[in-house]
């Protein structure tokens, strides 16, 4: 590619990804109505992550980008996890010491 643009992806790849997204959407609605106990939310999140990955990888063309862009994209996710993880380290351990408010 003379300008550094990504190679041209055939339309059918995009349509296939679209089909995948549509199926996953149906699936997530379907499994939400099933009883999996504590697993419902993890299943829903797994499906959402799969869908997001499809969009990022194909539609947003991350697969043709430089490693630097990939690292950038990943860093957003990692920082989010840092915020959630360390933030929850407070909320999930508050009751450990049986002293109110400590």
């Amino acid at each position, binding site marked *: 590619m003379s300008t*550094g*643009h990504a190679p041209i992806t055939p*339309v059918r790849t*995009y349509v296939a990804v*679209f089909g995948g997204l549509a199926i996953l959407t149906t699936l997530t609605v379907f499994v939400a109505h099933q*009883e*999996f106990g504590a697993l419902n939310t993890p299943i*829903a999140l797994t499906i959402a992550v799969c869908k997001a990955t499809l*969009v990022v990888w194909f539609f947003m063309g991350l697969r043709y980008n430089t490693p630097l862009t990939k690292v950038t994209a990943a860093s957003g996710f990692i920082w989010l996890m840092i915020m959630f993880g360390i933030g929850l380290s407070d909320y999930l351990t508050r009751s450990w010491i049986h002293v109110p408010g400590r």
Partner: protein
Amino acid sequence: MSAGGPHPPTVLGSSAHGGLAVAGHGEGGHHPRQQHHFYTMGQQLEASILGMWVFLVTEVMFFGGMFMAYIVYRTWYPTAWAASSNQLNVIMGAINTGVLICSSLTMVLAVRSAQVGSRAGQIVNLILTMMFGSTFLVVKYFEYAEKFHHGLVPGPNFNPHHVLPDGTIEHIALPLGSQLYFSLYFMMTGIHALHMIIGIGIMLVMLRWAIKGRFTPDYYNPLEVSGLYWHFVDIVWIFLFPLLYLLGYNYRG
């Protein structure tokens, strides 16, 4: 860390733009769309794509603050969360998910049309993208109206109820924490909708430029970068849909 420096013409991935690569500023032979402070078209493209991704990381953290609040309160008030979630209209949410996925497809096809040099393709797909985006907002409007109708808007007038077919009002008792849920619901979907509106505005500009024939297989950076933004907004919804609409069906514990 260093994924290759920007030294033209060799290091920029597969980028150097033919023989124009190292031409100094002011000399002839530049691509007309190359800005003066870049050495090559490839450098310009790499910069704008990296720039958009960096910006999207910012957006991730922006929504992340609300997701943090969501997680904390959901662990505190699981019953309120499930009960409130069941007040949402899953059908509308599902329709909107589908609509957004369609718009992402047309968006990526618009970019592809630029790659293969089809102006008509860009125009048609951009218009379709905007139509899907607008459909999303219209559905959202009806959804919000329904919430107002059922007294689900937090604040002094929070009074969840249904109006039965015979006109009697059936109040719904929602546990403490439901107002937090609906606050976050309006905050998250509202900010998401705001992003959609901004996205449609960007698409209007892109449409104008596409009609003018500004995008060629050599140069379509703005279109590609706007596409990245549009897909990101789609991804946010991909997470909002299960987390807000679907969690209530089978809540246990």
